[in-house]
Structure formats: C-alpha cells, structure tokens
C-alpha cells in the first residue's frame, strides 16, 4: 500500500533486486541532460530521417502480415489498415470526431458539404471539394468516388459490397465534383458508410485501379495517397511503416485546418505493454496506443514528459465504446429479467474498477458509453430519473441506483495512488463517472427467488433444479489485459453470490460472441459515434427483423440476442428521422430507460485506452483540455492530430 509513496532511493533498491525496468532505465534514460537529448534527436531512425522530425506511433494491431498488401478495400481485416494507411494516406468524404473535433464534431473532408438527402431518403447528393490531388499528381474528382462505389458494388469479395449492392440503384455524375446516389429503398443513414468514425469507405484512385484485372487480389503497392503523407519505406516483416509528408501536402483536405508540421511518421510494432513503457521511457515511442494501468502509472511517476488525455488519474482516453457484461438472453435463467438484474446487483463495481483499471475507469450505469459528448447528451439528463428509478424486488419497489459509486472508487484508489487521484467531486464525475448500480447481495438473492431460481448446495440452480452455469467469457488480447482483469473480478463477485461460474478467457472472443456460443461475456456490443448523439450506429443491428438465434452468426452486434417490441419501435423511430434531427436524442433517452429496465447487458464502464504521448520531441497532442480529436492512433480520425502536433526542435 505504501509502494507509491516510497522514496525514489528505496524504490531503486527494491527494483534492482530483480529487474531494472523501473530502476535502471530511468537513471539511464530519464535523467539524460537536455543537451544530450537534443543531440540524440539528431539521430536517424531510418536513413535520412532524424528522430526529432519523425513521430513514432504504436500500431496496436502489431506486426503486419503480409507487409506489402495495401488493399484496404478487400473483405476482412489487416493490420496494414492502421499502420498509417487509413490515418495518413487515405481520405474519406466526412469525418465524425469521437470528441469535439478541430472545427466541430462534423468535418467535411473530401466532401465540400454534408450529404444532401431528398425528403424520403432515396437520393443522396455529394458535393466534392476542388483542388485536391493524389500524391502522384493526378487531381481528385467525382470520377474517383463514382468509380470506387461502382467497383465495390460489382465485385464480390470487396468489403461493403453487400451494402452498396442492396442500397445503390444507380449513380449519376451531374458534374465533375458531384455524385448523386439513387437508393433502392429509403435510407436516412446511407452517408454513414462514407463517414469515418475509426474507419469508413475510403476513396480509391480511379487511375490506378482501373488498370487492375483482379481488384480482390490487387495489393495497391505502393499506395497512392490522398492524405498529407505518402509511404517512404516499410519493413518486409511488417514491424514498421515510415511515412513522409507530401511536398504538396497543401493540396490535401486537412490543409485548410492548419499546417502539417511533422515531416515523418512511423507506425511500429513495439511489442507488449511492458516493452512499450520501456520504449517511451527511452523516448523511442512518441505515441503509445495502450498499456496496462500499471504501466501508465509508472510512466506518470517516472517520465515527466509523458502526457495523456486527462492530466492526471485516470489519464486514459475513454473510447466511445461500452464494455459490459453481455448475457446470452436465450440461455435458461438469463432469459429472465430478474436474473440479469440479480447478476448486476451481485457485481461490486468498485472492486471491478480497482481490479481492472486500478480505479482508472470511467463507469456508466446506462447503456451508452460515458465518453466524448455523451455525458452531456445522455448521462446528465438521465440522472434525476436514475435516482428515482425502481425495480420490483420481492414484489416491492427497490431503488437500485447508487450515486456514490464513482466517489467510492476514488476513495479506494487513493491509498494506493495518493495525490494522483482527484478529490474535487466535479472532476471525479468528469473523470471517473457518476453512479452505478448498488452492490446488494440481499436484493440480488430476492430477485433470484422471484425468478423461481433455487439454491442447491450453496449454488444457484434453475427452477427445475438443473445447474445454472454462467461461465464468463472475457477478451484477453495481448495488448490490453484490463477487460480480462475485470472479468476475473466479476467471476469472483459472482462466486461469492453463489453463481456457478468460471473465467473463459479468449484471445479473440468476437466470433464466439457472434455465434452465441457463450453464456455471459465481458465485451462490448455498444459503440457510438462519440461526438454525435445518433445511436443508430449500433441500434441498427438490434431490430428483431435481424434477430438470429444462437448457433448461427448474429447480424452485427446483437450478439446477446435481445428482442423487444418497444426496442423495435425506438429503432424504427430513429431510422425514419434525419441524422441530425433533435428527436434522435429523445429516442436515445427512451432506449436508455428501456435498457435499464430490461438489463439485457450490464453496462460497466468506458473502454479506457491508456494512450500515452511523449512530449520530448513533439507537442500539441489532444487532451481533455484541447479535445480536438482522440489520440488513439489506429483511428482514421487521428489524421487531425497531424495538423496540431508540432516538433519541439524543428
């Protein structure tokens, strides 16, 4: 408990006994005089590329295999997408920022203005900017957009082929910079396919692709760029990609937002969490995508040049994503609302926050992530309702909401982290979130009994006495252990409650989720635009017409198999109004209330990404104080970082 209040000397002594991770690297690298650092900055990270001109970012997808295939449009996923390709070289019509944006949440990138729908949403007109050029000098025009959609629509094996095939009847090009899409059926969200939130449909250079026989097999090497950077070199083993600012970067869409000052950018695979921490301690990695909370704490203590989204605890950038305990609503027992609620009340959110993020979590009681603009859109308006909200427990009204949850987490984290944890309740609310559901085993027990569940030999069983097993699947990718840590804690909580459970840790739980081969699962099915309140982003999959029972892959994110007529009504309401219609938020609030009552999944917290940036060579990273975009470097949106980041020693 005193660990982090040790003197530095004591700390060194301890660490030296086994590892010098925190002991030797700081003295070796952390206390290097500035002058020496400056000299170091002249070092080359690649032939002709000085360190202080090259922003080094982590590619969270790791090593790229095969390294030389830049076809971003093919079905499937490749780590090459996020090795700078979609951030630096490709461009799309529109961007929605998960945070506030450089110039508002919505940005018209390649498009000159937002999409223009006709009244019944069967026609969408796109006006493009003029004067943008591909890196090989060819001018960008409506031909490229037309060609891209046309090619994909007609080429099975390309990503989104089905989308365009089922939506686009035909296109027209009234002039060089305008494309009109005639849709087969009304679609108020057709522009979403072209709008980057992480990624979207990027536009192909027609003059390159029209020479290709087999677009599915084409590797697009070297990639012709429409962004501010072009590919300079890359590792055939996929460990690093080096991008170079285009001479004519001013002829790209970001130029109007500011000067692109970073000459080079390199996306690398720095290895697992510990190695990333070391690399940043050595100032060899400017932008870490994610590390363990402990790694982040170490950087906070040992490397004064490291900064994060929040200036202090919990530092991390909360993704517009909502980790939750997802129940398979089809499984016996879990098909009962009371049981799902009982399981929710059997979770001690404070312990989960401590175990997963060491308290550095942003919790959410409702079914939208507490990130970006969402607290303003949803959390704050719903707070009074939550305080009064009741469910039936043993036939009586019971108020399950606990407004003190975030405060409890802060108090528990403080003994270990001391001053790093804020004390101001307002800051706590902003950083750690508001309330959550009570940890109340008695109420949970009553709920189980209400549902007809029985306790057999100290374990809960189904009404007929057969075992009620709830193994909790969790995701355990190499890069981030927090979800798995949270799941382990919930397993412990549930075991205490008498649930027959176990931890089923999976490196890649997504396909299992999709096919419904699980009982409970800690992952997410709710992702939002972040900056924009429209919930259609995830709700589009939740309508009962797309319902697929367990055993077959679910259509999109309704992997919990939730079906509700009220929900259908809300979704139908959303899809018939325009994207920016204020009624959208109202429907969203209705959704939140419905979800709280039904509890199809138990929302936990934001997916906090410990993106950590080193200010040794560069500055101007996004933060809560200047939230112009998210710093998470695999997002297509991070292209906006490059107009704000400036080298310190140019």
């Amino acid at each position: 408990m005193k660990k982090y209040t040790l003197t530095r000397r004591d700390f060194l002594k301890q660490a030296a006994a086994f590892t010098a991770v925190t002991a030797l690297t700081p003295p070796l690298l952390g206390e290097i005089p500035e002058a020496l650092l400056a000299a170091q900055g002249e070092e080359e990270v690649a032939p002709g590329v000085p360190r202080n001109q090259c922003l080094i970012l982590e590619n969270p997808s790791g090593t790229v295999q095969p390294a030389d295939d830049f076809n971003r449009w093919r079905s499937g996923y490749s780590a090459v997408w996020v090795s700078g390709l979609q951030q630096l070289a490709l461009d799309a019509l529109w961007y929605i920022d998960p945070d506030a944006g450089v110039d508002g949440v919505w940005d018209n990138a390649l498009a000159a203005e937002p999409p223009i729908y006709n009244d019944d949403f069967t026609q969408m007109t796109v006006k493009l900017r003029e004067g943008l050029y591909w890196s090989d000098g060819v001018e960008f025009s409506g031909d490229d957009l037309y060609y891209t959609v046309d090619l994909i629509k007609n080429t099975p094996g390309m990503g989104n082929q089905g989308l365009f095939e089922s939506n686009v009847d035909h296109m027209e090009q009234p002039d060089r910079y305008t494309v009109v899409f005639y849709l087969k059926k009304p679609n108020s969200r057709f522009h979403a396919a072209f709008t980057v939130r992480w990624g979207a449909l990027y536009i192909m250079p027609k003059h390159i692709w029209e020479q290709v026989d087999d677009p599915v097999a084409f590797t697009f090497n070297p990639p012709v760029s429409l962004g501010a950077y072009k590919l300079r070199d890359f590792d055939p083993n996929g460990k690093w990609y080096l991008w170079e600012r285009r001479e004519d970067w001013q002829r790209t869409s970001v130029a109007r937002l500011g000067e692109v000052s970073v000459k080079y950018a390199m996306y690398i695979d720095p290895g697992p969490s510990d190695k990333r921490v070391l690399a940043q301690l050595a100032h060899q990695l400017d932008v870490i995508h994610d590390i363990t909370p402990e790694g982040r704490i170490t950087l906070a203590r040992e490397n004064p040049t490291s900064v994060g989204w929040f200036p202090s605890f919990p530092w991390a950038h909360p993704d517009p994503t909502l980790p939750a305990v997802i129940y398979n609503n089809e499984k016996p027992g879990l098909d009962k609302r009371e049981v799902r609620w009982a399981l929710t009340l059997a979770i001690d959110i404070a312990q989960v926050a401590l175990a997963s993020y060491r308290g550095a979590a942003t919790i959410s009681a409702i079914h939208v992530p507490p990130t970006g603009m969402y607290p303003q859109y949803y959390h704050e308006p719903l707070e009074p309702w939550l305080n009064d909200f009741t469910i039936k427990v043993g036939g009586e009204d019971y108020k399950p909401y606990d407004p003190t949850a975030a405060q409890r987490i802060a108090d528990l984290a403080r003994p270990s982290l001391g001053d790093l944890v804020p004390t101001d309740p307002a800051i706590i609310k902003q950083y750690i979130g508001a309330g959550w559901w009570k940890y109340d085993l008695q109420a949970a027990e009553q709920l189980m009994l209400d549902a007809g569940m029985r306790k057999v030999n100290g374990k809960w069983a189904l009404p007929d006495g057969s075992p009620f097993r709830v193994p909790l699947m969790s995701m355990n990718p190499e890069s981030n252990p927090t979800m798995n840590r949270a799941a382990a804690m919930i397993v412990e909580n549930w075991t205490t409650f008498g649930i027959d459970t176990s931890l089923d840790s999976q490196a890649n739980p997504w396909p299992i989720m999709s096919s419904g081969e699980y009982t409970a699962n800690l992952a997410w099915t709710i992702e939002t635009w972040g900056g924009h309140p429209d919930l259609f982003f995830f709700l589009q999959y939740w309508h009962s017409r797309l319902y697929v029972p367990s055993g077959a892959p679910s259509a999109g994110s309704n992997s919990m198999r939730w079906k509700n007529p009220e929900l259908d009504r809300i979704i139908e309401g959303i899809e018939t109004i325009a994207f920016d219609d204020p009624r959208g938020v109202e429907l969203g609030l209705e959704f939140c209330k419905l979800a709280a009552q039904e509890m199809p999944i138990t929302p936990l917290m934001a997916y906090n990404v410990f993106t950590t940036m080193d200010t040794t060579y560069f500055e101007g990273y996004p933060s809560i104080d200047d939230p112009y975009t998210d710093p998470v470097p695999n997002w297509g949106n991070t292209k906006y970082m490059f107009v704000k980041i400036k080298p310190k020693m140019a």
Partner: protein
Amino acid sequence: MRKFILKYLIPRIIQFLTIIFVGITVTYIIPRLAPTDPVEAQISTMMAMGSSLDPASIESMRAALTDLYGLSGSPVEQYFTFWGRLLRGDLGPSLDNFPTPVSKMIGQALPYTLRLLIPAVIISFIFGNLFGAMSSYYPKNKALKVIEVLGQVVRSIPYYIVAIVLLVTFSYFIPIFPFSGAYPIGTRPDWSSLEFILKNLEHAVLPAATLILVGFGGWFVGMKSLTSNIISEDYVVYVETAGLSKNRILIHYIIRTAILPQFTALAMVLGTVFSGALIMEVVFGYPGIGSLAIRAIYSNDYSMIMGITIYSIIGVAVAVFLMDLLYPLFDPRVRYQ
C-alpha cells in the same frame, strides 16, 4: 539392394507416410472443432475494430469470404479438396491475410526461425553432448556436477520463464541486448550488408540462448546415460590401460560411439524444439514461424495453422526418416553386415 528396398525401405516409407497422414489429419480436425470459424473471426474483428457495417454488407461479406476461403461444402468435401490441393503443393491462401498464399508467408518467416533454430540446436547438441560425456567420464569433477544439476533443472523450466529471465537480466537489468525483434525498427533487412547481419546477430543472442540453455540439459542427460554404459566397455578400458590421453579417449572412443543414438534423438526432438521456438519468438517479438503460428491460432486462420503444422510434421518426419536412412553412414556396424 532389392531386398534392402523391399524389406527396409518400403516399410519405412509406408510408416513415414502413415505418420504424416495421421498427423495432418489430426491437425486438420482439431481447429475445425473450435466454436468459431475464420469468416466470423474476420468479420467480427472488423466490427470490434470499430468499423460500421451495414447488416446487408455483413451478410454479403460472410458469403463472399466463405466462398473465397473454400469453406463451403461439408467438412468431408472440404477434407478431400484439402488433400487435392495439398498434393499439388498448394497450401491455399491465408485466411487472416487473404489472399496471400500461406506458403509465401511461411517462406518469409521460415528463414528467420531456421537461422535461429539451426545454430541453437547445433550448439546445444554439441555442448550438451560434450559436457554430458565429460560428466560421466570425469565423475568427480565438481564443476561438471554443478553444470549437470543446472542443466537438468533448466531443461525442465518452461521456455517462457527462461526467456523472460534472460530478457529481464540482459535487456533491462544489464541492457546489453535489444529486447525485441530481429533487427532495429527503421532498418530494412539486407542480408548482403555486414552491418545488418551483425545487428541481426545481436538481436538473436538472447532468443538463441534460450533455446540453447533449455536444449542443453536434455542432451547432457541423454549423453550421460549413454556414456555411463560405454565408459565401462572393454574397448574404453583397453585404451585406458594402453595409456591413451583422456581427451582422445573421450572424443574418439566415448563420444564417437555414444553420439549415434543422439543423432536419432536429434530428429525426434525437433518437434519439441519447435514448440520452444514458438514461445521464444512470442517473448522476443522475433518475426519467425512461431509468431506467425500464434497469430494464426488467435485469428482462427485454419490454412495458416495447417500450413505450419504440415511443415512441422513433414519436417520432423523427414528428419526422422532421413536419420533412419543415414544412420548406417554413421555406424559402420549397421553398414556392413
């Protein structure tokens, strides 16, 4: 010669082919029992990565991928198609990295693994056998006793722990070796440049040391038990009484004979060493077959898993088979009789 072919070669070839067949079939079946399939893995990865996909788009992608990956049809049909392709030497495209052929990716990774594995195996083989023989020939030597106990213990310690201890000690505590990769970030592999090769060697020291340390003990113990019988053989006692120097006896009389079964064992343990290399590459971020395999397993890339296991099975089986055939070259007793 005819008899040799009929009585020796043919049964061995049959056995060799049977082993490969059974092995490949087993590895064909196991991943297909998993609850997920690669198409779903691909789509859900895209979704999890935050791509917004229209439900229709997902459906069409699912159909397209199933078709492209050759996963349509019943498992039995797929199995026969699989053998058909395999016999033409086609391992198919990687599902995770479609449409890159599996063989291309393995071809790229294999040299890294081999460049590490072969020297490491040879070094541990030589030193393990040498010290093993010495320890039974000089039973009183204290240093050898210590080496024996250490070798024994290290050999059973999981590769992971050995790797991590080395990594922590020599990359963090005494930072003399790089802690990741096969060459520095920002460098392009260029095998004609001496500088690059030196860099590569520097990066290979710790991974190789892991394999060597763990491998050493096995050879040591094996050799020790083999030689413990040989040191009391008449021909050793004889040359001892004839006054031959200990070194000469050790090398020409003890090791020369005892090493023979070790060659066979060498082929047999390749499979185990391969498993070690896999872990080692994960720990050290080394761009070889091991890294490839782990990624393939995590992404349910059947073809890649199959490709790697097929390479591994055939590799080990061929090694064992060749060792069987070549054994007479090493052992004149079998050669002329």
